[in-house]
């Protein structure tokens, strides 16, 4: 049975119909990608799953629990999210220690010391970072802290919203490797949202292409590598990700 089941999801913000009937299933331990350009509704799908955007129509179930307006404490322990901009996702006045100990305090963990140190080690930061403030860290280091914060509750599902698009290429590689390793070690389930087909191809076994709030098509990694896209839009995306080709004329 699928761990995450999204069927006919609609999200409306007042007049704006951001997601128009998207369905997909993600199995336990799978890494699923959502690709699209800005305004395609790809991030809104993630936000609807985690409760930051309303589910206007349709059903979303995570581990058999159908999600309503209110999310249980257990839900937060099962599912966590990493945001796009590491400069905006950490509280500017909280030390790393505070960032990591807060979720433990909310959920009443007792061995906080050990868990914080383990989380720092796991994301490759080391203990020297524990009492620093976010402004003392680089973008990549901040994103590692955000990953540690998400992992410290030992969730089964991680929602990754463009986790590397604000980072330099070399830092992106490090963070992608970290996410890959953590998934292998902990058997995590990922839903990764990105505008970069190469990142999704590298990280995910299956992916959904979205445009204008609708699903265009679902592909496997093998399809993508074979360039076996059925829809024109996907083919455009694939062509664009190759870089610039001067020979082609637009008219």
């Amino acid at each position, binding site marked *: 049975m699928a761990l995450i089941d999204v069927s006919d999801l609609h999200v409306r913000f007042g007049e704006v119909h951001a997601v128009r009937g998207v369905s997909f299933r993600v199995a336990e331990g799978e890494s699923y990608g959502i690709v699209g*350009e800005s305004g395609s509704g790809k991030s809104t799908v993630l936000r609807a799953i985690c409760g930051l955007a309303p589910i206007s129509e349709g059903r979303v179930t995570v581990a058999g629990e159908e999600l309503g307006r209110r999310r249980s404490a257990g839900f937060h322990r099962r599912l966590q999210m990493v945001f796009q901009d590491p400069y905006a996702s950490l509280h500017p006045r909280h030390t790393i220690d505070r960032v990591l100990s807060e979720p433990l305090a909310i959920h009443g963990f007792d061995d906080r010391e050990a868990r914080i140190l383990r989380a720092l080690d796991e994301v490759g930061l080391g203990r020297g970072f524990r009492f620093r403030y976010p402004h003392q860290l680089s973008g990549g280091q901040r994103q590692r802290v955000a990953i540690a914060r998400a992992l410290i509750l030992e969730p089964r599902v991680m929602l990754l919203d463009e986790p590397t698009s604000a980072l330099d*290429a*070399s830092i992106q590689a490090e963070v992608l490797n970290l996410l890959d*390793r953590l998934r292998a070690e902990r058997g995590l389930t990922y839903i990764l949202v990105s505008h970069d087909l190469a990142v999704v191809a590298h990280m995910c076994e299956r992916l959904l292409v979205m445009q204008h709030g609708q699903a265009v098509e679902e592909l496997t990694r093998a399809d993508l590598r074979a360039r076996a896209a059925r829809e024109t839009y996907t083919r455009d995306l*694939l062509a664009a990700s190759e870089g*610039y080709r001067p020979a082609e004329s*637009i008219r």
Partner: protein
Amino acid sequence: MTLLHVENLRVTFPTRQGPAEVVRGVSFTLGRERLGIVGESGSGKSQTGRAILGLTPPPGRATADRLEFDGIDLRAATPRQWRGLRGIRMSMVMQDPKFSLNPVMTIGRQLMEAARRTASRAEARDRAMAMLEAVQIRDPARVFGAYPHELSGGMGQRAMIAMMLIAEPDLLIADEPTSALDVTVQIEVLRILDRLVQDRGMGLVFISHDLRLVGSFCDRVLVMYAGRVVEELKAAELAQARHPYTQGLLNCLPRIEGGRRPLPVLTREEGWAL
């Protein structure tokens, strides 16, 4: 023909720990071609572009042994000379159109104002419309009367490019002109720039963090690291880069075809920054 000579360009910012050099002796020449400058954040690529236009933000200071645009020594240029150059003979496109367009003026008025420096009122209007068409805006009449906030990111960026180009500059410095755009729009914007280089013989300095894009778009590439140019090569020969930094940057990108897992990471050596 060489349009721009840059020799030993240095940009320094004072900090509490003493002056910090963010550009440390950059030299290159630019003809009527597409020159790419790539590097990661903090490599000094943007400051290099700004320094050429004399736009180093204070309290920073730019110095050079030679900084010459079409025979004009830019180091000794008076404010009056700069006014005759910036926006007319040399222009700059920045990353975010929202910060570069005047929010309380319609696109049309801004375009006409830029064109009015060299043309009459009626002529300026015609040229503004023509330019909007040239940057592939489908409904130029609507965009002409629109305010910047009424445009999408891609439209805004194109309007911005139109504004920079209306004076038909000889040199365009484009600092990450497409990284705020979607990939499909990005390609269209690049086509416009490409055509200007081909048809009008404009010189283009294309500053970007995206090695793959620069490699496929430009003629020549400068790779910057810690304020220095570590390697200069033909874009077509990017795959044969010799400097370990350039190689590392190329290798650490994930590929659709599938590459190594885990991705090779870049190990920086101290020697590169010396």
